[in-house]
């Protein structure tokens, strides 16, 4: 995208300068020629208008590029270095690109479902900003709240035959990877599989072309982020912070190795009947307040954040070729998805 943005900027200046020269030339000729000599004046003006129009009507991929900050450096090929979160496995680098892919896929799913005789309402794209990570993550672990909600969440009734048919058309049948329609990709000892006869799979082929290739690459990159996370968990800064947190918690008679263990312990005591709902809520709040203080004192979260940022960079550098291939795939997919939506 940096390449396109850089080229667009240079082209824009060239076109603007050309237009000024052409318009100036046209005005000069207009002064020199008699009023009836329309044709000689019309030609340069029309050319200028066409150039201005070409400047104002970008191609689909340019339209996306212009909504994004332009990279100051001009690259010779798409690169993962333009991506702030290169190990996410997301084809879209930002909300605009992710929404474009989402909309194209939803449009293709709708076409597929309608062709098979089923109604389908396109799902709306959900922006990251709306979920505000961490906003509700303090003072408790959500245990008492979750257990309270469980009383209000009835089991859904089995689907009707028609609903099941529609569901199967959309997502595929649940027989599993042994089914001949299934495709799968592998990375780091685990597999992602899906039914290629489903409309969600059909939609990906319509939008991206090589569904298998795209998913293999995205899945492999997602695995890299977990690799970076494992490295961060072994980082000295983080392990020292955890040791400090453990000592701090132990002083408050909470001998746990991790927050996960602490939450499990609370839930198990509730399951065994040692804590009723009210007691659980009260203890949860008290323990979470101590946890938050110990975390703040020893910077468990902050240590992980900085270690993870560093290990992600290291892992990305080691896998540069694969990430560049993904960046190239993004370029072609942006054009394909834009064209698909324009059809």
């Amino acid at each position, binding site marked *: 995208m940096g390449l396109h943005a850089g080229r667009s900027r240079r082209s824009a200046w060239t076109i603007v300068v050309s237009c000024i020269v052409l318009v100036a030339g046209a005005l000069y000729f207009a002064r020199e020629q008699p009023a009836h000599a329309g044709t000689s004046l019309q030609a340069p003006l029309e050319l200028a208008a066409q150039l201005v129009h070409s400047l104002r009507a970008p191609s689909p991929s340019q339209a996306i590029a212009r909504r994004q900050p332009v990279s100051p450096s001009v690259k010779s090929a798409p690169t993962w270095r333009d991506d702030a979160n290169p190990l996410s496995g997301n084809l879209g680098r930002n909300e605009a690109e992710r929404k474009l892919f989402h909309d194209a896929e939803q449009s293709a799913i709708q076409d597929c479902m309608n062709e098979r005789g089923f109604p389908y309402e396109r799902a709306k794209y959900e922006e990251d900003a709306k979920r505000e990570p*961490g906003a509700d993550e303090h003072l408790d672990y959500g245990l008492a709240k979750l257990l309270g909600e469980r009383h209000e969440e009835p089991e859904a009734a089995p689907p009707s035959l028609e609903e099941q048919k529609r569901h199967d058309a959309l997502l595929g049948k649940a027989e599993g990877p042994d089914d001949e329609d299934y495709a799968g990709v592998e990375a780091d*000892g685990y597999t992602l599989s899906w039914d290629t006869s489903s409309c969600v799979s059909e939609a990906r082929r319509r939008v991206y072309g090589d569904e298998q290739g795209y998913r293999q690459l995205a899945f492999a990159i997602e695995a890299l982020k977990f690799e970076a996370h494992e490295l961060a968990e072994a980082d000295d800064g983080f392990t020292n912070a955890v040791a400090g947190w453990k000592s701090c918690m132990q002083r408050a008679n909470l001998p746990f190795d991790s927050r996960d263990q602490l939450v499990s312990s609370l839930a198990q005591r509730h399951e065994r009947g040692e804590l009723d709902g009210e007691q659980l809520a009260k203890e949860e709040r008290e323990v979470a307040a101590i946890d938050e203080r110990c975390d703040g004192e020893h910077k468990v979260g902050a240590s992980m954040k900085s270690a993870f940022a560093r290990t992600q960079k290291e892992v990305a550098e080691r896998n540069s070729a694969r990430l560049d291939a993904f960046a190239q795939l993004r370029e072609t997919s942006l054009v394909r998805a834009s064209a698909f939506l324009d059809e």
Partner: protein
Amino acid sequence: MNSLKKLLAGSALAASLLGAVSLVQAADQTSCQGGVYKLCIRDYENANGTPGTYKNIQSTNKNWSSFGWANQADWYRNYHASQKACVHKYAWSSSTGWDPPAHSIGPGDTLAGRARYNLGNGNRWTGGACQ
């Protein structure tokens, strides 16, 4: 009269607790077929009791131990019609102010690992991106 009130209140509480336990147990299944599911999970290692037990997860849960699941799972299928299931595995979730890495399981996708892998211990749903 007071004793009767206490007895009735105690019975009501006991009934509620039993109801809660039965709901939790009813949500465990022996397969993911024949019902309405969102995210179906399974732990190969049988750490959760009955061999082959599955669990249907409908909400967002930072840590599955909060509903009695022994923490991890290695097989997932997303039955949601439009939302991705983001499955994370992180012993320090909550109150760190950032999200751990997550597996993105799209509608209709099945994610599975070898027995030694426990791929996740919490989830959230999104109509956008997992990470």
